[in-house]
Each structure stands twice: as C-alpha cells, then as structure tokens.
C-alpha cells in the first residue's frame, strides 16, 4: 500500500516534468527544427547514394538499401515538417506583437496538420518494395507541401505585419527628429541624413508590399514554397533598407545631440 502511493507520486512528478519540457520556447523549437532539417538532408544523401549504387549494380541487397533509405528519408521529412509546425505554433503563442487572428489561424492550422502526420508515418512504414517507394514518395511529397502551406501563408502574413510595424516606428522617429532638426540653425547635414532615412523607409515599404503579394500566392495548386521563399527574399531586402535607415537615424540623432550641447 505504502509503495503504491510512493510510485503514484513519482509518476505524477514525472508527468509534470514532461509537461514542462514539452512546452518548449520558440527558440528551442527552432533549434529542434534545424536539427531535424539536418537529419533529413543526411538521410536524403544516403537515399541518393543507394539509388546510384543500385543503378551501378542491380543486386537484391542494393534494392533493399533503396527501400530502407527511402523509408528513413521520408520519416525524416515528416519529422522535419512536424518540428517546423511545432516551432511556428510556439512562436505564435509567444509573439503578442502579431494580431490575435493571425496567431490563432497559425495555431489552428498547426494542430490540424500535426494530426495528419501519424497517418503518413504509417504509409511510410508500410513500404516493402522498390515499386512502393516510388508511389509513396510521390504521395508524401504532395502531403508534405499540404502540411506546410497554410501555416507558411499565415507566417508570411505575420512577418509582413511585423515588418510594417518596424517601418512605421522608423518613420515616426524620422518625423520626430526632423521636427527637432528644423528648430536648429545648423541643420543641413541632419536634414540630408533624414532624407536618406525617408528614402530607405519608402524602399522598405515597397518591398514589404511585394512580399505580402508573394505570400498571398502561397496556395495549392501552384508553387507555394517558391512563393514563400520569394516573400522571404523581399523581406530580407526590406530589413537591409531598415538597417540603413536606422544607421542614418542614429547619425542624425548624434548630430542633434551635438548641436544642443
């Protein structure tokens, strides 16, 4: 009797710990995704090598190697997709800067798609022949994109929202510093720097607009992951414009400090 309650207490303690560990931060979830991505890349290389070995020497052993490595790479791809979805969920739950409706859409899509992964794993584990590798591979390839597409589109929406916010803050500071500079006698250099800030913010906003248009095309049928990458590319350019804008804002701020001394 005594032993029973002691065991129950230890189990309860372990369950609490599992709960704490599973509630990973978005930083940890991202690291987990990167690790799964690396594992999938390595499994993919092994599968490609097995195909080459079979093409060179069509033995039953090499044929079995194709089946085994294909199962490993498909499983790894599902692990990678699962880790990415978990990362996006953790990120959405943490990032209160993004509107509630976008965050909720991401969380709902993640939950819906995570539920599909177990069924896909069963299909992968059922592969027994080289012929089945081909059909299941194509099926998983399509399902893999389906798993990610909705969350990718909403992630793009969240990223563009944040980018607009950052550009808006930079524009607000530019206006405030310009107002301060206009009260100074010797303000030519400051105004010139603020003009650069304005131009960089304008370029950034244009790129954010273009990124938004790309993310809106993250749909099936089509090339959703390419559109997602395109959107990311435009946002990276907008980030560079905002870094340039910030650099000039800082210079203008320093000059205003000097003029006020």
């Amino acid at each position, binding site marked *: 009797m005594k032993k029973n309650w002691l065991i129950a*207490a230890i189990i309860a*303690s372990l369950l609490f710990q599992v709960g704490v560990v599973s509630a990973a931060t978005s930083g940890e979830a991202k690291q987990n995704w990167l690790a799964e991505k690396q594992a999938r890349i390595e499994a993919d290389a092994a599968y490609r090598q097995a195909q080459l070995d079979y093409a060179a020497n069509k033995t039953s052993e090499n044929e079995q190697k194709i089946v085994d490595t294909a199962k490993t790479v498909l499983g790894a791809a599902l692990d990678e997709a699962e880790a990415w979805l978990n990362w996006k969920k953790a990120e959405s739950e943490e990032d209160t800067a993004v509107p509630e409706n976008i965050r909720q859409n991401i969380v709902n899509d993640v939950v819906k798609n995570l539920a599909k992964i177990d069924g896909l794993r069963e299909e992968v584990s059922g592969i027994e022949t080289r012929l089945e590798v081909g059909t299941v591979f194509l099926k998983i390839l399509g399902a893999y994109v389906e798993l990610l597409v909705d969350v990718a589109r909403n992630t793009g929406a969240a990223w563009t929202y944040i980018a607009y916010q950052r550009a808006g803050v930079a524009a607000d500071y530019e206006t405030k510093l310009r107002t301060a500079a206009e009260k100074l006698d010797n303000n030519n250099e400051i105004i010139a720097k603020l003009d650069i800030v304005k131009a960089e913010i304008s370029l950034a906003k244009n790129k954010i607009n273009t990124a938004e248009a790309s993310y809106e095309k993250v749909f099936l049928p089509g090339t959703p992951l390419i559109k997602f990458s395109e959107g990311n590319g435009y946002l990276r350019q907008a980030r560079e414009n905002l870094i340039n804008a910030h650099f000039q804002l800082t210079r203008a701020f320093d000059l205003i400090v000097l003029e006020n001394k």
Partner: protein
Amino acid sequence: MKKQIIISAVIIVAGLILAGAGCGTGDGEKIINGQEEKTTGTEKEIKKDDINVNSGVTQEELDRLKADIEGMEYEDLNGLKK
C-alpha cells in the same frame, strides 16, 4: 495519510524545481529571436542617464528599434524533392 500527502507534495514540488532549473531567464537577460543578450548593471545605468535632447526620440528607443530590425529573420522551406 497526512504524512503520505505531504511526502507526495514534496516529491512533485522537487520534480518541478528540477524541471524548471535552467529554463528561466535570469535577471539582466533578454531573449531576442531565441538568442540571449545579457545586460550588465552598468549598461542599465548608462541607459537611464540618456541625454534628453528634446528630439522626441531617446537613445534607448533607437537601440530597441535596432534590435527589433536585426531580429527580423526569414527561414525558407526547401524540404523534400523527388
């Protein structure tokens, strides 16, 4: 029975403390996109003493904007290919 409840509670609390060890963010640390940035007491004092130049913007606000912009990271999804 009372003793059993107390011992159970002690085991659960000890488990939670162990699970939480190292998970928290310490004083003077902030997390930006998964990366920890440490600020020392001296840095905090310097920021408090920012010169007010009636510009409507503070050095602290500019520093925060810089961190926010630099934290804008976009990861592609390359995934599986046949």
